C-alpha cells in the first residue's frame, strides 16, 4: 500500500532555520529515505516553497485567483513523501523515525490513486 507522509509545520519557524539546521534535518530524514530507496519503497519526495509564493484558485462559475493561503493557519503543508509500506503501522513508524527531535507534524495518509506522472523534474 502506498502512503503519503505529509509534512506540516509552522513555516515562520522553518524559514527561520539557519542553513546548518536545515541541512541537519534533511540529513537526518535522508537516513530513513535512503533505507526505503534501497528497498525500492520510496516514491516521489516533494518540498514546497513557502505559502507566500502560492496563489489560490477558488473554483466557481468564474474562478477567482487570490494570493494566499492567509496567515491565520498555524501550520502549513511544506512537503510530502510517498512511501510503500506493508501496513499503516509501518508507515507511521517511518514517519516517527523521520520526525524524531523535530517539532512539526506528519500526517500519514493512505493513497487511493497514484500516477507516476510523465517525467517532469
Amino acid at each position, binding site marked *: 500500500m502506498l502512503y503519503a507522509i505529509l509534512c506540516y509545520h*509552522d513555516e*515562520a*519557524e522553518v*524559514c*527561520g*532555520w*539557519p542553513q546548518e539546521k536545515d541541512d541537519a534535518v534533511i540529513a537526518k530524514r535522508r537516513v530513513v529515505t535512503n533505507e526505503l530507496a534501497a528497498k525500492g519503497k520510496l516514491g516521489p519526495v516533494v518540498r514546497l*516553497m*513557502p505559502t*507566500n*509564493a502560492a*496563489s489560490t484558485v477558488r473554483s466557481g462559475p468564474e474562478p477567482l*485567483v*487570490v*494570493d*494566499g493561503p*492567509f*496567515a*491565520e493557519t*498555524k501550520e502549513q503543508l511544506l512537503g510530502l513523501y510517498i512511501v510503500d509500506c506493508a501496513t499503516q503501522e509501518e508507515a507511521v513508524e517511518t514517519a516517527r523515525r523521520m520526525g524524531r*527531535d*523535530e*517539532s512539526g507534524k506528519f500526517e500519514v495518509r493512505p493513497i487511493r490513486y497514484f500516477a507516476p506522472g510523465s517525467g517532469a523534474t
Partner: protein
Amino acid sequence: MTDVCWIDEALTAARPQALGALLRYFRDLDTAEEAFQEACLRALKNWPVNGPPRDPAAWLILVGRNIAIDEKRRQKRHEPLPAEELVSDLEDAEASLVERLDSTHYRDDLLRLLFVCCHPELPATQQIALALRLVSGLSVKEIARAFLVSEAAMEQRITRAKRRVAAAEVPFETPGAVERAERVAAVAAMIYLLFNEGYSASGGTVHVRVPLCEEAIRLARLLLRLFPGEPEIIGLTALLLLQHARAPARLDADGAIILLEDQDRGRWNRVLIAEGLALIDKALRHRRPGAYQVQAAIAGVHAHAARSEDTDWNEIDQLYAALERLQPSPVVTLNRAVAAGKVRGPAAALAMIEPLAAPLAGYFHFFGVKGALLMQLGRGDEARVAFDRAIALANTTAEAAHIRSHIDRLIKDSEARGGRKVSA
C-alpha cells in the same frame, strides 16, 4: 523529548505576534517585554513536561498577560490569579484560549510592533537595532557583535531608542487604510535598510554580515504573511532572496570582493533564486509596479544569466530607466549608467554620470564606476584620480582593497604598453 532546542525555535517564531499583542494590552514597551520574558521562562519549565501547546503564541500571550496583571494586582495587595499550569492542564483550555484572543488584531499588532521601531525621529541604525531587539529577539550582545560595537554602546543605543519611542505617541488605535499603507511602507524601508546593512556593511573590516541579511529576510517574510497581496512586499521579499542568493560567491577566501561578472555562479543559491523568481512572477500579475519589484526584476535578470556574458544588459538598462521614473535618484542613474555602458559603450555611460558629480561627490561607488569607465576608455591618469578618491571614501577595507586592485592593473597595463607611466 530530549532535545529542548525546539522550544527556543517556537519561542522565537511566536515572539513578534505575542509581543505585539502584549504591547496592545499594556500600551507600554517595557511592561510588554517583561511579560513576554516571564512567559518564556514559564514555557521553558512547562512545555517539556506538558508538551508544546497547540498555539504557542496564544499560550505566551495569555500567560504573559496574566503575569503582568497578577503583578499589578500584587502591587495592590489583591489575590493572585490562578497559575498558568492550571490553565494548560485543562484538556481544551487552549481551544477556548485561542478563541479568546482577538484574531482580527493579529495583523495590526504585528504591524504596530514593527512600526514602533521605524519612528521617523530614530536614525536608521537605531531603527534597525530596535527591530532586531524587539521583533527578532536577538540579545544586545548579538546585535552589538553584528554592528561591531561594544555591548555597552549597543545597550545605550537601544535604551535611547526605546526612550524616544516611549516619549513619542505610539499609535494604538486600529489604523485606517491610508495609515496602514504608510506603516507598511515604513516597515518595508526599515527591512531594506537592515538587509543593506548586512549586504554591504557600513563600516569595519567585515564586508558581508550574513546574519543581518537572514534576519531581514525573516522579517520580510513576516511582513509578506501579513500582506500577501501587496505586490511591493512580494517584490521586497523577492529582491532580498535574489541578492542573498549571491552571498556565497561575493567574497573570496581572503574576504576580497568578487564582482558580479567574475563570480562563480555555481555557488549562487539556486533554492533562493527559484523562490525569488517565483515571487516576481506573482508580483507582476498584480500589474502595480513599484521600486522593489523593479529592483527584484533587475536581480532576476542577473540570476537568469548562466554566464556573465549572457546577461541581458538591454533589459537591465530598461528596468533601471523604469526605476528612475518610479524613484528618481542619482544612485539609480549611476546604476543605469553601468548597464548603459555595457549596451552603448563607456563613452555614453561617462556622459550619463557627468551630471552626478555634484550630488554624488561623497559616494564611493560613483568614483569606482567613473574610474572603471575611464580605464576602459584608456584614460589612465584620470582613472587613477577617480580611484584615489574612491579609496578615500571606501566604507570597508574590502572596498578599498578592491579599488587598489584596479589601480594595480592600471599600473601594470601602462607598464606593459611601455607608455607614459601612471605615477604609483
